């Protein structure tokens, strides 16, 4: 019994201990949990053991538009959980700040369809709403340009020419010649592009290779004749067969000389018009008139034989060949095929399906481009800066036929357009307003590569044709930028908000120097202008211009110009960001030579260094101008092209639009310079300038219908070697000074070691041939091609200026101000990247703060900006 009692007590004791222990032991952890909740929804739940385990991380608070979120403060018990531990997300409304950039333009774009845009205004909208494969912008230190990979993946292009160009079938398909081995294939024929898979249209639709192919097919559609097809049908970025596709089936009359594969039976002689032999600048009759004896062969007047009767188009026969080769020989050309340079042919572009155009895809995101000729890495990147994408369904739905042309309304309203860049178009009212907002579907806002960029949330562009209105709006804080005029500079010349940006354009007077046509003008208008044909007269005019004064008081901030190409031209920016043509010694020497200062520098001379001498050039020498005017007068009187007493009233064709107030100011200033420079000369008080508008000033002066024009050439700032062709190669552009200056006939002798034997040799070629060689690859085989090209370019520039059929006066500088609201990344202009643009623009005030700032300043910021 005692044993039983003892056993019972032990049992009770054990049970009690078990009960006590059970009561005292922490609750089983699987029953209570740590729960994370957001807006009542369970996001995650964990046991205490899980949470205490090594490597546990807190769950992320679910994102909520317009809020930032975090978990409420909590503490994890280290020993037990007596109940569920619920941790709620705490959301705080985000203060959304808006940064609106308010700008203006003078007139609405006519379209923003990237296939047909024509003017700067046209390219305005897609400058924000579209972006290229590779964009060019500032580097991280804002002092140089940098390639930014956008619509292609990082470093997403590869030269795969060697893989394809050894395949004869491939090459034949694209009209190219295959290479025997991969080693022979030059780089840059076939490029493989890996598209950015995150790129999409503003409606969220992914942009795939199909978009690129369809858009290119539209761009090259022969029925649409899109202006911007030329980006891919010619030049460095010419895509194989693109030109054939674009011109499919069309027949054009071309010079037979360009089609050496055409048989004589397929070409015809016609000497009533222009001919390649004479540079295609003048009709053959002009040369016949000037050099009649050259056309006489064995006593027969060959020109009259073929152009004198009713029949003017002739089939090629042995007789024709013999006659025209003989004429060519009289001009010093013994080429047996010279007769073809007087002939034409009908060239019909082959019907080319789009499939044969050098662009094809592999899957959704890999695109191949086959170029008509190898493209350099640099040029590929430059070309990758703009794309040809259009939203296919919108483009097609707005297509229709208009008078034999297929047209589309794509890019003329918000509904007829779709963005794929950082901003999207949200409002457009013709001639009133353009509004763009952040395109929230743009990959750049979430890919982590654009942090700190594109702070601007909206762009509001008002169309304000009147600059004075815009200036007032700027001064009361309604605009964030303003272009200034010459008169505004009186107020804002020293403003810290002033932004002066050099441009490539050189303003110049250009002349008709052909005596015959000048005399025709005299007869027709009773104005004496034939004296313009005297070189001394034009040189005197040039020396009479006080360019520094003219730039300062006649413009809003332009610079004096003495040359055709200003400091904005870079000849090798790919390898040297500071490779400005104008800063080279040869370019400076050309200008010194022009003003007879080439021997004025060096030890013991007026100027110690070349730079010092160059910087001293003013182009203004009133005494020399007077001497030259006197000399011009004597020459003109002696040669009986001027009677010596009549007034000389020169009409300067100024622009297409009515001459502005600024134009009249410049006219008056120029008149003053001429008046001063003729004091004491026989021409004193006799020269009058009259600026007038003209619909086609370049054509009128070029064709000899007018005596003088005022205008600017510029652009192509990365291609100075090409740019000079605008002045020297009539095949490249119609030369404005062509009346009296035939660049295809007149020659320039350049002394340089072209053959690399260490000795300079004199080489004489026409202006046109020098220009063509600078554009082409003639000098690429030399040890230092750029050195040679720079030399030739400077020699050509000097020769052109020395002829004085044009007088450079001003170098364009756009002067503007920016508001106190915005901040550019840099105020030092960076080639190719500018000031960083909208990408790097930041704000001193958001919209709300700006309103407050304006109120503080009584809505008048003029005192701040002055």
């Amino acid at each position: 019994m005692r044993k039983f009692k003892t056993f019972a007590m032990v049992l009770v004791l054990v049970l009690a201990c078990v009960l006590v222990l059970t009561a005292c032991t922490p609750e089983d952890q699987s029953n209570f949990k740590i729960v994370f909740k957001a807006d009542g929804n369970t996001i995650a739940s964990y046991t205490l053991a899980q949470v205490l385990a090594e490597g546990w991380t807190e769950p992320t608070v679910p994102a909520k538009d317009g809020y930032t979120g975090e978990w409420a403060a909590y503490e994890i018990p280290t020993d037990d959980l007596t109940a569920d531990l619920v941790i709620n997300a705490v959301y705080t409304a985000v203060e959304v700040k808006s940064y609106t950039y308010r700008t203006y333009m003078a007139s609405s774009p006519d379209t923003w369809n990237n296939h047909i845009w024509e003017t700067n205004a046209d390219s305005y909208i897609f400058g924000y709403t579209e972006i290229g494969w590779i964009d060019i912008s500032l580097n991280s230190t804002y002092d140089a340009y940098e390639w930014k990979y956008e619509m292609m993946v990082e470093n997403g292009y590869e030269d795969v020419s060697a893989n394809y160009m050894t395949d004869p079938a491939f090459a034949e398909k694209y009209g190219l010649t295959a290479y025997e081995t991969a080693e022979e294939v030059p780089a840059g024929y076939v490029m493989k592009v890996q598209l950015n898979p995150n790129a999409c249209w503003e409606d969220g639709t992914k942009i795939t290779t199909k978009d690129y192919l369809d858009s290119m097919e539209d761009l090259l559609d022969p029925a649409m004749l899109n202006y911007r097809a030329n980006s891919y049908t010619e030049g460095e970025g010419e895509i194989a067969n693109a030109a054939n596709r674009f011109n499919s089936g069309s027949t054009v009359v071309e010079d037979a000389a360009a089609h050496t594969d055409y048989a004589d039976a397929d070409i015809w002689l016609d000497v009533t018009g222009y001919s390649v032999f004479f540079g295609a600048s003048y009709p053959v009759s002009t040369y016949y008139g000037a050099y009649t004896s050259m056309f006489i062969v064995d006593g027969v007047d060959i020109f009259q034989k073929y152009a004198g009767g009713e029949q003017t188009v002739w089939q090629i026969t042995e007789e024709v060949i013999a006659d025209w080769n003989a004429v060519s020989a009289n001009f010093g050309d013994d080429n047996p095929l010279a007769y073809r340079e007087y002939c034409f042919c009908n060239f019909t572009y082959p019907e080319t399906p789009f499939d044969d155009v050098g662009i094809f895809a592999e899957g959704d995101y890999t695109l191949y481009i086959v170029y008509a000729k190898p493209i350099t890495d640099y040029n590929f990147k430059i070309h990758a800066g703009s794309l040809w994408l259009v939203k296919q369904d919108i483009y097609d739905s707005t297509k229709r036929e208009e008078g034999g042309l297929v047209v589309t309304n794509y890019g003329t309203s918000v509904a007829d357009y779709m963005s794929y860049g950082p901003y999207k178009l949200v409002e457009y009212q013709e001639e009133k307003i353009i509004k763009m907002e952040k395109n929230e579907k743009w990959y750049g806002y979430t890919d982590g590569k654009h942090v700190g960029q594109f702070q601007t949330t909206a762009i509001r562009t008002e169309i304000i044709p009147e600059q004075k209105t815009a200036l007032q709006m700027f001064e009361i804080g309604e605009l964030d930028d303003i272009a200034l005029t010459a008169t505004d500079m009186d107020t804002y010349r020293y403003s810290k908000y002033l932004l002066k940006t050099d441009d490539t354009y050189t303003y110049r007077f250009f002349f008709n120097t052909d005596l015959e046509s000048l005399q025709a003008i005299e007869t027709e208008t009773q104005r004496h202008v034939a004296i313009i044909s005297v070189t001394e007269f034009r040189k005197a005019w040039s020396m009479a211009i006080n360019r520094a004064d003219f730039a300062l008081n006649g413009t809003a901030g332009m610079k004096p110009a003495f040359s055709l190409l200003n400091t904005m031209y870079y000849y090798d920016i790919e390898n040297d960001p500071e490779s400005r043509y104008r800063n080279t010694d040869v370019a400076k020497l050309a200008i010194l030579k022009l003003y007879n200062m080439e021997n004025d520098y060096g030890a013991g001379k007026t100027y110690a260094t070349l730079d010092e001498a160059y910087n001293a050039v003013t182009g203004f020498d009133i005494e020399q101008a007077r001497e030259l005017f006197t000399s011009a007068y004597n020459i003109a009187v002696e040669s009986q092209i001027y009677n010596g007493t009549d007034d000389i009233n020169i009409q300067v064709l100024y622009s297409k639009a009515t001459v502005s107030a600024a134009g009249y100011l410049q006219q008056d200033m120029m008149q003053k310079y001429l008046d001063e420079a003729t004091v004491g000369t026989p021409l004193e008080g006799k020269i009058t300038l009259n600026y007038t508008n003209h619909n086609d000033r370049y054509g009128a002066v070029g064709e000899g219908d007018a005596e003088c024009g005022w205008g600017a050439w510029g652009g192509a700032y990365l291609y100075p070697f090409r740019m000079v062709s605008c002045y020297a190669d009539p095949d490249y552009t119609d030369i404005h000074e062509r009346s009296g200056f035939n660049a295809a006939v007149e020659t320039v002798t350049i002394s340089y070691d072209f053959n690399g034997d260490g000795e300079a040799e004199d080489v004489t070629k026409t202006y046109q041939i020098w220009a063509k060689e600078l554009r082409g690859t003639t000098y690429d085989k030399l040890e230092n091609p750029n050195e040679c090209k720079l030399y030739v370019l400077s020699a050509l520039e000097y020769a052109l200026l020395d002829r004085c059929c044009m007088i450079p006066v001003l170098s364009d500088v756009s002067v503007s101000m920016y508001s106190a609201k915005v901040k550019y990344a840099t105020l030092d202009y960076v080639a190719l990247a500018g000031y960083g643009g909208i990408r790097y623009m930041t704000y001193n005030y958001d919209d709300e703060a700006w309103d407050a700032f304006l109120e503080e300043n009584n809505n008048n910021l003029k005192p701040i900006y002055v």
Partner: protein
Amino acid sequence: MVKYVIKRILLMLMIFFIIMFIVFMLIKQLEPEYSMDKTMADIEKARREAMGYDKPLLVQFGIYVKNIVTKWDWGTSFKMRKYYGVVDVIAERLPPTILINFYSLILSIPLGIGVGIYAALKKNKWQDHVLSTVIMIAISVPSYVYAFLVQYLFGYRWQLLPLTMAPLSEAGGWFSWTMFKSMLLPIMSLSFGTIAGMMRFTRAELTEVLTSEFMLLARTKGLTKAQATVRHALNNAMVPILPSIISSFVGIIGGSLIIEQIFSVPGVGPVYIQSINLLDYNVFMGVSMFYTFIGLATTIVVDLSYGFIDPRIRMGAR
């Protein structure tokens, strides 16, 4: 009367057609300034060829007239507003022009006539001299000078009114208060000249009527000066004034190039100039013929209005 109206309308159509022919032939003489880039120039030439611009002018004119008559198709804008119909281009730009000019007339006609009556009644007194001097200044100074002045004072200096016309979306519609407020400066600029002209015209007419013999008769019959003026003088003076008011109303769609430019009004005024500068032939033709029609129609309406204003004037009577 009906016969007369029909005759006038037929005559108007004939003149309209002749003007159309002349304008068409003249504008087509202008060749565009082709791009310096030869490829771009070639594309432009090919486009012009595709659009039929290389066909003989008479053929082009025939096609133009045929499209208008058969399809009411006035052509397409190939430059200004790429590939929009000419009618749409003009219609898009008409509302602001009409509104501003309408508001301006509503303001200036009563004011001009009222001041004119007052000046006539105070003829050769100091009030008349003061008003005449002010009006002479108002007539002599071009409207754009007022435009810059009111813009500077009300918009910039005192900031009572916006410097430019509001965009449609921001104003909330053509007839919103915001839109009206933003139109006040151009309205004021346009009104000065009209007020002055109307005042001068009214004063001159009324002065002449007031010195007529029938006015003396009216007074001798025992009418007071006020009665005679209201019942007889004003009635007679209105015969030349009312037609000028009508023509002003019809002319409001003409727009004002300079005023619209200064206040950034997206109106029809600059379309004419832009179409010439860009050689957008169809738009130029469309706008020219639109104005021609307005001008011719105004003449008919004004002529007919004489008969309604003064029943003694009978149209077409032998």
